[in-house]
């Protein structure tokens, strides 16, 4: 459905993307993970035909994204990473305008989406909060029922409740056969919806894996507070991978197999336990390290 082949683009400041390749199959939800400045939006701009690649190509539904301007867009919906609408419109008038540009007459889906995302479309866009604008953008990307929906950081600005509703919407569309590509810098955000994901770093793809593999590769940090420092010491000496130890507090890294950790921990009284939120590089630290060594 969507093929990115050897996509390369260098900007005048030396930044850019190098040899980015992946394929998204029909009806699949594909995640595109990377830290800030990794090149996610740049790749997506090529997919949307806004930029001409130095090398490589993007094909959607058999059409070249750069040459097929106006054709490709019949099959796609797009949510830009930075939201900005035309001045002097309300949410409703903007969506009405987009629908007429898309050539869509039926308003049923638009109204359903507005209802589900719970916002007042009659508000002037100038007065909308970031989350509200994001919702307007999501409606614009979904309302014409495209075959492929491309979302650049879709859940930025949405509160947890809305993120959940958004996830449901994606899963419903997926069940109806829609293909998705969505970028994010957080693994938690995409693991609920995605089948596969690519990880990009400094303009190059470091991995394209299915979500279960990524989940097992994922490194989690637990912080455990024991009753006594002695317990902490003994637990730390048990052969598990210890990140740090201080008094009766131990930080431990677990990757893939949780059983040795839970079995060992069951031997001690535990006062409290926390999961540490980490950034993408730390979650896939092993993976990034391995890549670095190979190179």
């Amino acid at each position, binding site marked *: 459905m969507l093929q990115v082949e050897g996509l390369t683009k260098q900007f005048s400041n030396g930044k850019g993307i190098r040899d980015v390749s992946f394929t998204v199959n029909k009806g699949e939800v594909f995640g595109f993970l990377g830290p800030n400045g990794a090149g996610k939006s740049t790749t997506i701009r090529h997919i949307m035909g806004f930029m001409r690649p130095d090398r490589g190509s993007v094909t959607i539904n058999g059409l070249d994204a750069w040459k097929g301007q106006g054709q490709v867009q019949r099959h796609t919906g797009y949510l830009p990473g930075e939201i900005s609408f*035309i*001045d002097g419109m309300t949410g409703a008038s903007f969506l009405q305008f987009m629908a007429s540009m898309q050539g869509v007459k039926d308003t049923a889906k638009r109204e359903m989406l507005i209802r589900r995302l719970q916002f007042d479309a009659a508000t002037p866009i100038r007065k909308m909060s970031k989350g509200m604008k994001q919702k307007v953008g999501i409606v614009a990307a979904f309302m014409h029922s495209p075959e492929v929906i491309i979302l650049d950081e879709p859940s930025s600005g949405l509160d947890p409740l809305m993120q959940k509703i958004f996830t449901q919407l994606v899963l419903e569309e997926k069940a109806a056969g829609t293909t998705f590509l969505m970028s994010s810098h957080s693994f938690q955000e995409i693991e609920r919806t995605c089948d596969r994901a690519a990880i990009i770093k400094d303009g190059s793809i470091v991995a394209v894996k299915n979500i279960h593999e990524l989940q097992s590769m994922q490194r989690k940090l637990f912080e455990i507070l024991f009753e006594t420092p002695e317990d902490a010491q003994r637990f730390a000496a048990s052969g598990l991978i210890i990140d740090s130890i201080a008094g009766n507090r131990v930080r431990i890294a677990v990757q893939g197999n949780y059983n040795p950790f839970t079995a060992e921990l069951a031997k001690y009284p535990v006062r409290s336990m926390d999961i540490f939120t980490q950034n993408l590089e730390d979650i896939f630290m092993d993976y990034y390290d391995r890549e670095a060594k190979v190179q």
Partner: protein
Amino acid sequence: MNLALYKEMMRVNLRGIMNYAGGSAFYILFMIWLYPGLADNTKALNDLVQAMPEGVGKAFGLNNGFSSAEGFISGEYYGLILVLILAIVCVQMSTQLVAKLVDRGSMAYLLATPTTRSKVAFTQAMVLVTSLFIIMAVTTLSGFAGKAWFLGSGYEFGIARFSQLNLVAFLLFFAIGGFCFLVSCACNDEKKALGISGAVTFGFFTLDILGKISDKLDVLRFFTLFSFYRPGEIVQGTAAWAEVSIWLLMIGLACFTIGIQLFRRRDLPL
């Protein structure tokens, strides 16, 4: 051309256009209303102009004479005020229609729909041309209305030459608008587009004035589009207005075409 986009853009810009058109109409009516009072003192006024340094009179069109209404209006209104109004409209609107949408990112929404870049750019160009046309049409009609109301048949007012004057003024700004549009299509940065097109447009205007003030600076007039536009000569019937019109039309068309092609081919940071 994309009709949905055209309608939306006209709707968004209509108020601004109508303000400029209304201002222009008011101003030209005011000038025509003034004229009978001045015409009765034509001799005294002409003497006054004679007494001023020659360059100044030329630069501001005072030498077009006060003996006919269109002569007076061509000098006083078409020589300065209208030019400023239309120059501002060209610079502002051309920037808003393309560079601003690219800079702010809203262009992404337009290009994410099944339309081509050429169509989007062409539509935006049409919005600019329509706006200039509306302002000029309102101005011209106000001129005719003013003649009927304030001048009657008692004063000279050459309908044909007044129409030629309006046609050439429209085409001048068609060409200048085309240039501003080209700049807007080439820029990612709204401020840069505004700066360049503003500097060039007002630069053209200044060169023209300097060229008129002093004969020594006459060469400057080869470097400005405004040399095509000689309101005084048009109302006196000494300008090759048809030839000038064709030139301006061609320059405008070329600029719009280049702008659209540039926009079609370049990378957009959306």
